[in-house]
Structures are given as C-alpha cells and as structure tokens.
C-alpha cells in the first residue's frame, strides 16, 4: 500500500475551555511509521490532544505539524489524518461497502471506482463477504474492522484511534489489539492510539506518551517507561511497582524483584506483615504492610512461593538488590 508516511509534531499545544486548561503546552514528536499510544487516566487531556490533531477540536495555542505543514487551520480531511471513533461511528443507514466508500464519495470519486477501492480495503480487513450488510448486523469486532477500512480508504499519513478497543469484550480486545498492530506494520504509517489501559499501551506501542493533568509525564518505549518511571505518578500508573519513601524522596522497586524471607533470624531487609495472598496461576501476589504504613506487593513465581509459603498475618522480611532500586523525581 503506497502511503506518504510523515512525521507528526506538536509544539506547545494548548487546549483551554474558558478557565480550565485541558492540555497544557504539550510538545511531542512522533516519527513517521510509529505506533504511539497516548496513555493516561480519564481527564488527563489525551483525547483532547488527539482531537486537536484530528481537527475536531480547535487549538487554543501552539502548532500541530504533519510533515512540513502546519495544519492548525486545515479541516480534518485536508490534514492527511483519519480518525477511528470510539464507537466506530459507522453510518447506520449505509451498508458496509458504502460506509467504507463514504470518504471517496465525499471527494467526488465515481461509483465504480470507489466501490472497487472499498472492496480492496474490505478484502484487506477480511470483511469482503459482509459488504452488503448494515452495521447493525455486525459484531463489535467486525464493526471495528469496517471502521478501520473506512479510515484507511483515503491513504492517510496518520491514523488516529480514540479508545478503539474499549467497546469490545476482553477476549476480542486481545485479538483486535494484535490485528491493529499488524495493520500498522502493513501500512507503515503512524498510528496514534488513545487508551487508559497501560496493558494495551505496552502491548502495542513503539512509543508510550503518558499524560496526567494536561501534561506529558514521560515519553519512551514501553520498556523504558516501565523500567525507569520518572515520577511517582508514572510508577503508580504503570502498576507492578512498589513505591518506597526514603526521607524527602521516594524510590520504586518492581513487584517481581522483591525477595521474601522468614522474618526472624536477623535477615537484612524491611520487616512487614502479610495482609493478602492472591493466587494468579503462574504467579502469586503477596501484599504486605510495614510498621510505618508502607505497602508492598511482591509478585512471586509459583515455584518461588512454594519454597516459602506465607499466610495472612505472617511476619516476613522484604528485600531487593541494590540495582533494582529506582529513584523517582517526585
């Protein structure tokens, strides 16, 4: 598929609604062909950011650049972006083929040509058999494929996805996630995907942009963000991290790097009481609380747990290798 892959750049982009600032001077560069996930809790400004890139929300200040063009004042279709909506926004009165051909029809492409092109796209997402159906006659996963075909039919340089997997059941979500990644590789264009699920972001993204309160907290590959959380917020949001206060500052230790040992016997480490044990199959989660109120969560492989099973109320010593201690900025 010939596509004009292009870089996407945000320069101090601001979105304000009266007094409220939804997006606060966000600067970001997404190289061409990147799978980028905008990650964050609800209300962090990730959707507003996406909608400003798409052109469905006016930009209060700053610039959005795609390739070498500042697209601030261009209508959505002239930016070279295409958006896939949260509930897919398929036209209920049009069949699958006409839904996919819709952007071409708007551009004045003749019927035969646009139907042929829609057919190609539907073949690509494995939906050619359903061309005559109405959206209401499709399952959630099928609707998503149609929405994807419609978004890609105009050969966009950047595809914007607004929580594309949130409407699906968990089983389908994992499958469609893999499909999204595959389409991104096949088309070679940038996907900007908004999600509040860190699991989704880690599975998909080349580049995770973690946002909070209208600002970017951290940008990096999933491994960088997970292994080297810059702030307390990042460590908390990515999960599986223990945040340990150390004077004014605090540091993070991954839950799977904690070592437990029987408390009595002068072993080095922090003493804690087991408050909960959760069996997860391959691993066991052990929750503990120290005398000073710090909570710990240890994720132990099942075999490791079996060597020294603990029960609620047991006293244990928690400790970790010095290299696993990761300092947090705030």
């Amino acid at each position, binding site marked *: 598929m010939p596509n004009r892959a292009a870089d996407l750049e945000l320069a101090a982009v601001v979105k304000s609604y009266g007094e409220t600032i939804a997006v606060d001077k966000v600067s970001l560069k997404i190289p061409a062909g990147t799978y980028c996930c905008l990650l964050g809790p609800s209300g962090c400004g990730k959707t507003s950011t996406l909608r400003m890139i798409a052109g469905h929300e006016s930009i209060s200040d700053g610039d959005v650049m795609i390739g070498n063009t500042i697209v601030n004042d261009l*209508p959505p279709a002239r930016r070279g972006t295409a*958006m896939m909506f949260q509930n897919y*926004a398929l*036209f*209920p009165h049009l069949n699958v083929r006409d839904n996919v051909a819709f952007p071409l029809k*708007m551009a004045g492409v003749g019927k035969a040509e646009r139907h042929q092109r829609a057919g190609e796209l539907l073949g690509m997402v494995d939906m050619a058999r359903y061309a005559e159906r109405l959206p209401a006659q499709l*399952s959630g996963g099928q609707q998503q494929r149609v929405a994807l075909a419609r978004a890609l039919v*105009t050969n966009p340089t950047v595809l914007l996805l607004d929580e594309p997997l949130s409407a699906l059941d968990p089983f389908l979500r994992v499958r469609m996630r893999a499909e999204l990644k595959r389409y991104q590789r096949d088309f070679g264009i940038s996907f900007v995907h908004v999600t509040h699920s860190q699991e989704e972001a880690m599975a998909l993204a080349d580049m995770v942009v973690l946002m909070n309160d209208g600002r970017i907290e951290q940008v990096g590959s999933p491994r960088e963000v997970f292994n080297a959380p810059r702030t307390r917020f990042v460590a908390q949001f990515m999960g599986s991290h223990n945040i340990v206060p150390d004077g004014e500052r605090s540091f993070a230790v991954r839950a799977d790097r904690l070592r437990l040992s029987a408390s009595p016997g002068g072993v080095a480490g922090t003493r804690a009481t087991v408050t909960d044990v959760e069996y997860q199959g391959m691993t066991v989660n052990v929750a503990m609380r120290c005398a000073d109120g710090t909570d710990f969560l240890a994720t132990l492989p099942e075999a490791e747990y079996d060597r020294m099973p603990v029960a609620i109320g047991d006293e244990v010593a928690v400790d970790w290798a010095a290299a696993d201690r990761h300092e947090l900025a705030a």
Partner: protein
Amino acid sequence: MTTTPTSGAASPPRIADAAMLPSGAETAATSRRRRTRGGAYWQAAPMALVFLLFFVLPLVVVLVVSFWQYNSYSITPAFVFDNYAGVFDGCLASLPSLCTTFATYLSTIKFCLLVWATTLVLGFTIAYFLAFHIRTTTMQIVLALVCIIPFWTSNVIRMISWIPLLGRNGLINQILVGSGLVDHPVEWLLYSDFAVTLAFVHLLTAFMLVPILNSMMRIDRSLIEAARDAGASGAQVLWNVVIPLSKTGITIGSIFVVTLVMGDFITIGVMGGQQIASVGKVINVQTSYLQFPLAAANAVVLLIATLGIIFTLTRFIDIRKEL
C-alpha cells in the same frame, strides 16, 4: 468468524440442558410458555378493545352506510353504489373540464402539497437549528417549548388572530398603504389561497417539527464528526447523513400534516371567507342536509385519496423498519 467463539460458548450448555431435562419438566415448561403467550394477548386486550371500539367500528359503520339508500326524508339499509355514482356524477362525461368533485379534490390536494412542502422546509430547518446549533440541553428545551406552547391555545383563535393583520384595513395593508408602497390595499392577503396556506402552515408546522426534532436528537453526534473527518462539507453532511437519518421523523410529520389538511374544513372556511371549496366542507354540508349515505361515500373516497398520498410518502421510507 468473530461470532463463532460466542455462539460456540453459548450453545453446548443449551444442548446439555435439553438433554438433562426430564420429560415431565419439559411438558411443564411447554405449558408455561403457552400460558405466557396467552397472557400477552390479555395484556394487549384493553388497547385492542379501545382501538376496535373507537377506530375500527366507526370506520366500518361509515363504509356500510356509504352503500345505503336515502331520499329527502328517510335512510334505508341497502347495498347500492348510487352514492359513489352520485359523488362522481357526470365527472367522466364532462372531462376534460373538471366536475365539482374533481375540482374540489384538486383544490384540497393543492393545499395539501403546498402546506406539506412549506411545513417540511420550516419544520426541518427549525429542528436542524435546535438539534445541531443550540449547544445546551436547557436552551434546546426552552426553544422547543417556545415553538410548542402556542399550540395550547385554540386552533380557531390562532386562525382568527390573522384577520386583523391581513384584512382589507388590517395592519399590513395600513403599513403598505401608509408607506406608499401600494396605492390600494392588497386584496389577496385575506380570504384567499394565500391566507388559507398561511394559516395551515401556522397551525401545522409543529406537527412536522416535533417528529423531525425527535429523529434528529437521536443522531449520534460522532456520526457528524465521522462525516467531517471523511471530508464532507456542511451540505454533504446534511444530504448524506442528517436527512437520511431524519427520514422517520419526516415521514411521521408528513402523515400528520397530510391527514390534517385533507380532512380540514374549518381553516379553509374561515381563512377562505367560505369561498373556497374543500372535501371536508362538502362532507360537512352533506351531513347537515342529513344526506348521511352520500357523506359517507364521500368520506370513503377521501380516505382512499389520503391513504394513497400517505402510501406514496411511505414508499419514500419503510416506516415499519424504523418504528
């Protein structure tokens, strides 16, 4: 393909359930199902009774009476087509010039189409404005009420209130003459086709507005954005998304307006200065002379004509699919 996991997961338990069901339990389940179906009919009965008593029965009576015989002092049950022949008396013979019946129908249908087109344009435009250009729900409700509250007053009052405005010495003529725009008062403002159409539009626009507004409020706003994202201009969004998705409301509003105009004789009488014929007026006059069978035959013809118009309009959209 994506549905297989769900159906695959759902069907085995169902098979297992059926297999494990003892025969006694099975018959109990069947009879319970039969009883619930009977229950559903009972639940529908009150409404069906009302429908039968106040809709079907009168219609049947009208149909039956339309075949009866009458003279100036009596009405006798019969099965003759005299009344229908009477309605169209001399109509075929006098063609191509129109007989009274044809001329009356033509005039009524002319008003019907004029009013339908005007209320459609007005109703659609106002509904579109309310649904897509007013941002807050409170303001939408307030403005919708502003459109609807005048309908709490009597039809006749709202009609008559036009007279001081449109009359020979009415407000509009005074302004026109006073400002020197015209030398003599404009005659066609009142007791004319114009006055009738104006009054109809005034009376009936809400019947078009409300169903269309209802349809439009249900349109998912993300569809409009999706259309914009696909490069649609404002007019293209209107034509390709808003109008197709408002068709249910347009059809329902059209049915209201068509039936109300086709059956009307008061508005045409008052605003036409009793000078304009209408099918409703003909029926009204016939009943006042106690020519009930003739009036009934006329009513049946009117009903068929109205159903014909509605049928044409519903071909425009399959209404049952949307309801």
